[in-house]
């Protein structure tokens, strides 16, 4: 059976995405406030949220705002933060097999953490309606863009955002994601090696390169480390949780 793309599925996904509205708005507000602080207009912030549609990458790009090599810095920020999407996409490919590229490639534009996780659950339940994934991605975008507009528009009313801890939202969000990815003792090595290499790189190189350097060093260390728990089992396909 090949993958399908139905109107019913799209509607179901879209409604599920709207259900995530509070969280998406909150995240959007955080981005909007910080974007307003570096002088980005409401229209500018909203267009970034629609076309880039990558909260963590956009927040990291704001950290680079005002750097002399801004264009390079934002592209590195996006690639570094979104590199997990390369892996997500790899896991999606077998599930979406049989779908026309004219539907598959536009659908991939809407991929975020939430609908990727949902797609993997659909896969495990034996369902292959890709419209659920695309609809959910679009549903999440509604709250994300609404939050961005509200944050950019009313951000000035909040005053000093450091006092409110807004600068800590991104680190805290990543720690939560890390907790979610944490499966066992084997995860210590990539996490710690990545962290240490990043600290050294951050100290001596600067920019956003430490994310790329640490990410590669940590993951390669894990790939080439001798396995203490035997060979990977049949349940350890990439993306197979």
């Amino acid at each position: 059976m090949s993958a399908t793309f139905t109107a019913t599925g799209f509607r179901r996904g879209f409604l599920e995405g709207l259900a995530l509205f509070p969280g998406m708005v909150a995240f959007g507000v955080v981005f909007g406030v910080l974007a307003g602080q570096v002088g980005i207009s409401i229209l500018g912030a909203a267009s970034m949220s629609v076309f880039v549609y990558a909260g963590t990458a956009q927040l990291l790009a704001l950290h680079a705002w005002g750097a002399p090599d801004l264009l390079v810095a934002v592209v590195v920020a996006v690639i570094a933060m979104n590199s997990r999407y390369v892996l997500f996409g790899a896991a999606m490919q077998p599930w979406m097999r049989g779908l026309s590229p004219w539907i598959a490639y536009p659908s991939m534009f809407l991929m975020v953490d939430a609908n990727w996780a949902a797609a993997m659950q659909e896969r495990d339940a034996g369902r292959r309606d890709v419209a659920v994934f695309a609809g959910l991605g679009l549903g999440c975008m509604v709250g994300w863009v609404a939050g961005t507009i509200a944050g950019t528009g009313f951000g000035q009313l909040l005053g000093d955002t450091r006092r409110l801890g807004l600068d800590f939202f991104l680190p805290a969000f990543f720690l939560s994601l890390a907790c979610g990815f944490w499966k066992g003792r084997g995860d210590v090595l990539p996490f710690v090696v990545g962290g240490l290499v990043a600290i050294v790189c951050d100290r001596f190189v600067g920019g956003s390169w430490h994310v790329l350097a640490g990410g590669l060093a940590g993951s390669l260390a894990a790939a080439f480390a001798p396995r203490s728990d035997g060979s990977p089992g049949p349940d350890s396909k990439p993306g197979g949780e």
Partner: protein
Amino acid sequence: MSLDPNTTAGFAIIVTAMAVSAYLTRIAGFFLMRFVVVTPRVEAWLRALPLAIMGSILGPIAMHGGPAEYAAFAATAAVYFWRRSDILAAFAGMGVVAASRWVFGI
């Protein structure tokens, strides 16, 4: 190369560059999976990548942080494992860092 993000043209170039790179990361793995032979080593590398990236983002932040940030990291992890919600946990961490900064007067 210097680019002024405060001009409409400069901003448009930056958003376009970000949008194109973001889309490329979304389709790269999807596209390349048709050609890659997933050996156990490639598989181990792919699986370790997300946590290595999280570690490399958090490492330098932890180095620059103080008591407020450490307390907030602990609260974030606690709330995550309690409610299994990443957005809720992130907001809890944000609340703790704001409260600690106020208490310690940092």
